């Protein structure tokens, strides 16, 4: 009786939670409704976790004896995991958002894999379909866990360079095949040959090891510029793993929420890949950047450095300015100073707009978040297709810490690895200032002909330092006038 009531309650609340999670995501389609969307989704999640304790009413007979300890462990894990993540999420700098999302995503994948491990080590998953689904969820969850951790290490700067070596793709393929074959072998052995429901623990451990190694190997060669796609893929994979484990546990809330994220993540990944004019497979399986070679003599002209103050003053007297932010701005934490500079320009009567490329930064829309943090109103921020026509009649463009997204080679150099990628037409403006730390190339390792153009000048230095100098120069102008 108590059990039935508990089940009814769990079913009802989970149904409401699944609805709230989807509805919350739906409200994220506008900046106005989005803040309430996440609160609604959060409420649904909290309710689902609280009623999750009603599972106590119907635990397996084998777990009855352990129940008090299990409850204590559950509460401790919730407080410890939730508390730590909550605090870190509240404290992390906006510029570190991509690695934080990668980390939380890896945790989700890990949780799904751990659930699968429990099903496999105990005798709960029986029958070929259930066991296969559990193993598939385990594989995807493990790959997502280890892959996300490598992505985190790359974004955090723990791993500095993409690791590439000969025969890498063969090794990756072998690791993946080994995990899949081992999974198939486990199903065959336990369900067909022996007929015992319990897979050999050693085989299960080996299976997880291969899956984890594959996740690491797959992510190691991928360069920084492709991180938006990678994070997006792992987000989708974790969703899928959660949906599969939800099916095994017969929990519709997990199935629905997981699958919604899986599809949403896939859609977002495709959007990112499209913005780079590459297929998802191309991003994951080719060593991007390795093919990029500078052909000597292909680019005419020279780099023309200019003083930061002079560049700032020249923009102060321009009629219209477009600013193209990139990852360099995030690295230098320059977003506040940038908006301060922009406000000075606006006071002087300059029309200022921000142009954001879909793959600028290290995760989709990272630039939008940085500008939002600096209180830049979102109606000043324009996306590629909305602003690209305007460059040709704009007086000055300032490119801060971006490179490949304004590289005209994508338009006209068939040999360039980024050929065909839609770019911001910064080269069509009357005057271009490139704020850059040094003469080095971008993450894709490609030479940028834009920098050598007659209308282009280089402002060398850390984005924040440069902006401070520009602000000082304009302020100095006002005090002497």
């Amino acid at each position: 009786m108590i059990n039935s009531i508990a089940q009814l309650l769990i079913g009802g609340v989970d149904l409401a939670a699944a609805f709230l999670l989807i509805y919350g995501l739906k409200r994220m389609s506008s900046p106005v409704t989005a803040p309430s969307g996440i609160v609604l989704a959060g409420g649904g999640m909290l309710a689902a976790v609280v009623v999750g304790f009603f599972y106590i009413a119907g635990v397996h007979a084998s777990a009855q004896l352990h129940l008090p300890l299990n409850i204590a462990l559950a509460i401790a894990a919730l407080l410890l995991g939730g508390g730590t993540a909550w605090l870190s999420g509240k404290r992390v700098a906006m510029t570190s958002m991509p690695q934080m999302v990668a980390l939380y995503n890896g945790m989700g994948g890990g949780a799904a894999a751990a659930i699968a491990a429990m099903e496999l080590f105990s005798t709960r998953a029986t029958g070929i379909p259930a066991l296969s689904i559990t193993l598939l969820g385990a594989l995807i969850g493990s790959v997502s866990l280890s892959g996300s951790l490598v992505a985190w290490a790359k974004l955090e700067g723990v791993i500095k360079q993409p690791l590439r070596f000969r025969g890498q793709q063969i090794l990756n393929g072998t690791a993946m095949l080994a995990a899949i074959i081992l999974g198939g072998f486990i199903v065959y052995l336990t369900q067909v040959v022996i007929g015992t429901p319990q897979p050999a623990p050693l085989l299960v451990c080996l299976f997880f090891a291969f899956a984890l190694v594959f996740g690491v190997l797959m992510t190691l060669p991928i360069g920084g510029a492709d991180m938006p796609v990678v994070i997006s893929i792992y987000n989708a994979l974790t969703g899928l793993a959660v949906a599969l484990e939800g099916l095994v546990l017969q929990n519709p809330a997990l199935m629905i929420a997981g699958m919604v994220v899986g599809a949403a993540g896939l859609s977002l990944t495709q959007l990112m890949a499209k913005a780079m004019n590459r297929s998802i497979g191309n991003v994951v399986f080719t060593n991007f950047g390795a093919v990029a070679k500078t052909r000597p003599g292909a680019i005419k002209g020279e780099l023309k450095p200019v003083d930061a103050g002079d560049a700032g003053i020249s923009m102060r007297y321009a009629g219209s300015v477009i600013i193209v932010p990139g990852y360099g701005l995030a690295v230098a934490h320059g977003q506040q100073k940038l908006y301060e500079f922009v406000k000075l320009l606006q006071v002087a009567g300059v029309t200022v707009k921000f142009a954001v490329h879909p793959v600028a930064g290290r995760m989709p829309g990272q630039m939008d978040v940085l500008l939002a943090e600096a209180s830049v109103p979102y109606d000043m921020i324009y996306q590629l297709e909305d602003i690209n026509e305007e460059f040709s009649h704009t007086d000055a463009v300032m490119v801060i810490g971006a490179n490949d997204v304004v590289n005209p080679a994508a338009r006209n150099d068939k040999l360039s690895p980024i050929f065909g990628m839609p770019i911001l037409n910064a080269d069509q403006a009357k005057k271009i200032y490139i704020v850059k730390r040094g003469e080095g190339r971008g993450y894709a390792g490609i030479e940028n002909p834009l920098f050598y153009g007659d209308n282009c000048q280089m402002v060398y230095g850390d984005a924040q330092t440069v902006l401070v100098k520009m602000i000082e120069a304009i302020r100095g102008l006002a005090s002497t006038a």
Partner: protein
Amino acid sequence: MNPDFSINGYAAVYILMLAGVTGWVVVTRVPAILHTPLMSGSNFVHGIVVVGALYALLNAGTTLDQVIGFFAVLLGAGNAAGGYAVTERMLAMFQPGPAKPLHPRTSKRRAKKAAQTKPTPG
């Protein structure tokens, strides 16, 4: 988990298919400016895995199950709580119009007003 209600065969496939279509449709309408919060938001949504982990841990019958279950709940809770915290923080920063926010409530009212006059920014 419920003896009276089980999802098998085609019912499961239907649920997954419909949920997949829902996710796809919901995301294609989100403007590029919100892609980061959307990503961390969907990251939060798959934090629901903590409920499954809770079920598995409460039903743990061996020490090994308890250890793995503990980590499952720990990681799932981290996913959910962390995803929520960063998403909420990011969304609070998006604001319309050139004026600085005076107070959270004022800016919310302003946001609504701006939405009425200018429905699709960006």
